[in-house]
């Protein structure tokens, strides 16, 4: 236990120096330019900012998929000349139920519906996306479990992409957008203390469609005629307008959208540009329907319904409809970023203003400083020279902790600061164990050298056992905890690892070197 080879000594000292170097950028700012220095990130609770946990509405995703499937089913049944038939969407069971009116058409209907099937995945993992079975109630066309998972995955991935684009448009610096679990998205916005605008931007699906107005239908009728829906007008609450269900052009075919002012009226508008497909379709529709009104529908509300005066072939258009500068800009942002596949709901929100974060940092730093002084004075008073060696090891422990947290680019939270402080208190436990043990061995009549040797060896197993249990408890906290509490678990677990190193390596090396240099007749224990 007492012999340190040159190589090992160099390794221990090297680790300490490296620890100090790597932790420096956190203390004095970036040191040298070109080097890949890493620093600890401050959590939102310390630097100020907003944390939003959003949930993707999977019910809406499935419902939309089923509606698409129903359209396909109708077309397939039409082609197979199956009529009459009934078709019901059973969203809760993730399926459609089709029942041909004539039982003799059961088999052809089954065959027609089977044409809808495609496969998800490739090779051996490939599975059909639909489960088509004949039941006593009719033919059930269900989405398979694999297809549901795939669909949900796509929806979350796509939502993350759209959320990122929308937030980027607002100019927030360094947003962090990550997936959490099956259907959730975490949005972290440093420096944003009032996330209201972001929440508004993310709260809209922003699905824009161009549909034709049906002038013959009466919007006050109790039930719309087939193929027509009654949609509310965005700027006239309570009023509805009859719109054909068929989507002529979709907002997905936009390439650009900008807020602007109409030079004549000074009114705020949104100017948009279609891609080539959108341009062609829009030209066709406007040519065929010149003189008729069409509706611009956003999230199932009609924002305007102008009359088509002439065919629009240039692929450019303008949306007007009592906008303010802010609402026009927001709509332009939403249209540029694209539509969300499903609505998002904020299920958890935490925002902290920067001054509260600064207060927290100050409180944490004061506590850390005072606690450090307490521990150091205690160790000096109770353990003398070996206590001061432990203190020196403790300083290196702090540096190594900072270094490892920087390398991991861990996030330092308020509870994380508490974790550092507690590590300070717990770290010297290893030194106390060693010192008490050496003292006992001296009392048992061993020579100084022998006492140190035995003391280190006997204390070592105890140190490992006692730290291991704490380590396990905090790993659990990391796995099951969330947010700032995870930061606590990270600092404590990192602290336990560095403590094992500094107490059993650095402190031991220093004590052995001191002994070799002075060869005392008695140990200061």
């Amino acid at each position: 236990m007492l012999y340190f080879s040159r190589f090992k000594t160099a390794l221990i000292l090297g680790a300490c120096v490296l620890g100090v170097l790597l932790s420096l950028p956190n203390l004095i700012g970036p040191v040298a330019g070109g080097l890949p220095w890493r620093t600890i990130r401050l959590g939102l609770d310390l630097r100020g900012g907003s944390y939003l946990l959003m949930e993707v509405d999977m019910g809406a995703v499935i419902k939309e998929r089923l509606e698409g499937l129903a359209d396909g089913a109708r077309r397939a049944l039409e082609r197979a000349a199956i009529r009459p038939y009934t078709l019901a969407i059973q969203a809760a069971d993730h399926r459609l139920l089709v029942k041909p009116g004539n039982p003799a058409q059961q088999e052809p209907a089954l065959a027609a519906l089977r044409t809808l099937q495609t496969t998800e995945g490739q090779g051996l993992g490939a599975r059909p996306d639909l489960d088509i079975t004949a039941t006593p109630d009719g033919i059930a066309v269900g989405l398979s479990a694999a297809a549901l998972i795939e669909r949900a995955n796509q929806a979350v991935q796509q939502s993350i992409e759209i959320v990122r684009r929308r937030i980027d448009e607002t100019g927030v610096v360094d947003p962090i957008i990550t997936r959490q679990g099956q259907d959730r998205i975490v949005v972290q916005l440093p420096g944003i203390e009032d996330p209201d605008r972001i929440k508004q931007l993310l709260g809209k699906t922003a699905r824009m469609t161009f549909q034709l107005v049906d002038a013959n239908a009466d919007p006050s009728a109790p039930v719309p005629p087939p193929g027509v829906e009654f949609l509310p007008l965005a700027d006239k609450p309570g009023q509805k307008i009859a719109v054909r269900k068929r989507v002529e052009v979709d907002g997905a075919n936009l390439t650009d959208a900008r807020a602007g002012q109409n030079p004549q009226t000074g009114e705020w508008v949104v100017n948009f540009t279609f891609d080539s497909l959108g341009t062609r379709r829009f030209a066709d529709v406007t040519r065929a329907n010149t003189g008729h009104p069409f509706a611009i529908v956003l999230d199932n509300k009609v924002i305007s319904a102008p009359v088509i005066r002439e065919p629009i072939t240039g692929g450019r258009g303008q949306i007007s409809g009592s906008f303010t500068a802010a609402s026009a800009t927001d709509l332009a942002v939403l249209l540029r970023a694209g539509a969300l596949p499903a609505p998002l709901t904020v299920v958890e929100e935490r925002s902290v203003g920067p001054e509260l974060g600064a207060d927290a940092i100050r409180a944490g730093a004061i506590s850390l400083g005072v606690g450090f002084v307490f521990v150091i004075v205690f160790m000096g008073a109770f353990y003398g020279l070996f206590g001061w060696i432990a203190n020196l090891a403790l300083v290196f422990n702090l540096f190594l902790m900072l270094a490892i947290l920087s390398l991991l680019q861990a996030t330092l939270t308020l509870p994380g600061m508490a974790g550092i402080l507690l590590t300070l208190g717990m770290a010297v436990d290893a030194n106390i164990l060693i010192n008490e043990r050496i003292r006992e061995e001296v009392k048992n009549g061993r020579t100084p050298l022998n006492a140190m040797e035995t003391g280190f060896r006997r204390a070592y197993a105890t140190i490992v056992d006692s730290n291991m249990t704490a380590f396990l408890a905090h790993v659990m906290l990391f796995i099951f905890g969330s947010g700032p509490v995870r930061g606590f678990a990270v600092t404590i677990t990192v602290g336990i690892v560095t403590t094992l190193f500094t107490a059993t390596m650095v402190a031991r090396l220093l004590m052995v070197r001191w002994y070799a240099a002075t060869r005392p007749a008695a140990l200061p224990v």
Partner: protein
Amino acid sequence: MFMRPRLRFVPDGTRIRFMRGRFLGIAVSAVLSTLSVILFFYPGLNLGIDFAGGIVMEVRTQGPADLARVREGLAQQGLRAAGVQRFGAADDVLIRLEAQPTAQATQAVVNRVRAGLDQVQPGSRVLRTDAVGPSVSAELYRNGMLALGISLLMILVYIWFRFEWQFAVGAVATLLLDITKTVGFLAVTRFEFDLVMVAAILTVLGYSTNDKVVVYDRVRENLRKFKSMPLRDLIDLSINETLNRTLGTSATVFLAALPLALFGGTTLSGFAWVMLFGIVVGTSSSIFIAAPILLFLGEHRLRREAQAPARPKPAKAAP
């Protein structure tokens, strides 16, 4: 002055008969823990927003805050605040609202609070908003309890693996008594029980286990050293031998947590007080609870095993 130690908690070679107080220790502990369990059910814990759901907003007003007007402003928005109170400085107000049935409703309420404030206290700024929807709070609670439960289980398995089962059962039984008392402490002090508190309890758990492992380790060592000593004397000897270490480590952790309790700010001072309480409980339970339980469980078995040469204990891990 820097060479020799100046202070010590107890002189060397103490022979305090701790095991004489074993019945008293366990009785006191059992009474405290029972009381704590009662307190847990009535009046119960002050559940924080993490676990109960709801909304907490910290607002800084321009000039001293008029709490009555803030309440009025909220009432105009059709909101009944669960609490409007001054928070630190004269221009700091803390507003609490009950959990809403859905996440959408929670978000709507946050917006209405802002609108209401703008009317009655123009120029006020929301410094902090915490809004937790019902599905998330239920999940956070479940995860917090899972973290506690699985940690206890892992500690049990680890000690079982490294020692004998009597040690593991003794340690975990003591830890359960420690946790119930900590919960009782939370119920009495009305500190908010949230995720940070779960972290505090887990840290107390880790600390307390650490303390027990050190004493147990010495018991195991002495079992091998003194083959004929009665277990009762042996446990007393082990506690006495490790007493300076036990008190020393308690002191350093206590000293490290103390400034946090005093200057740590609202979030951390509750955490730190729980830590301080846990250190005292954890340290005393190592001596007065964990050791007696070991004595009861191992009175015959551990001694016989230690004397039987046929079943050597596993060697300690060599460094």
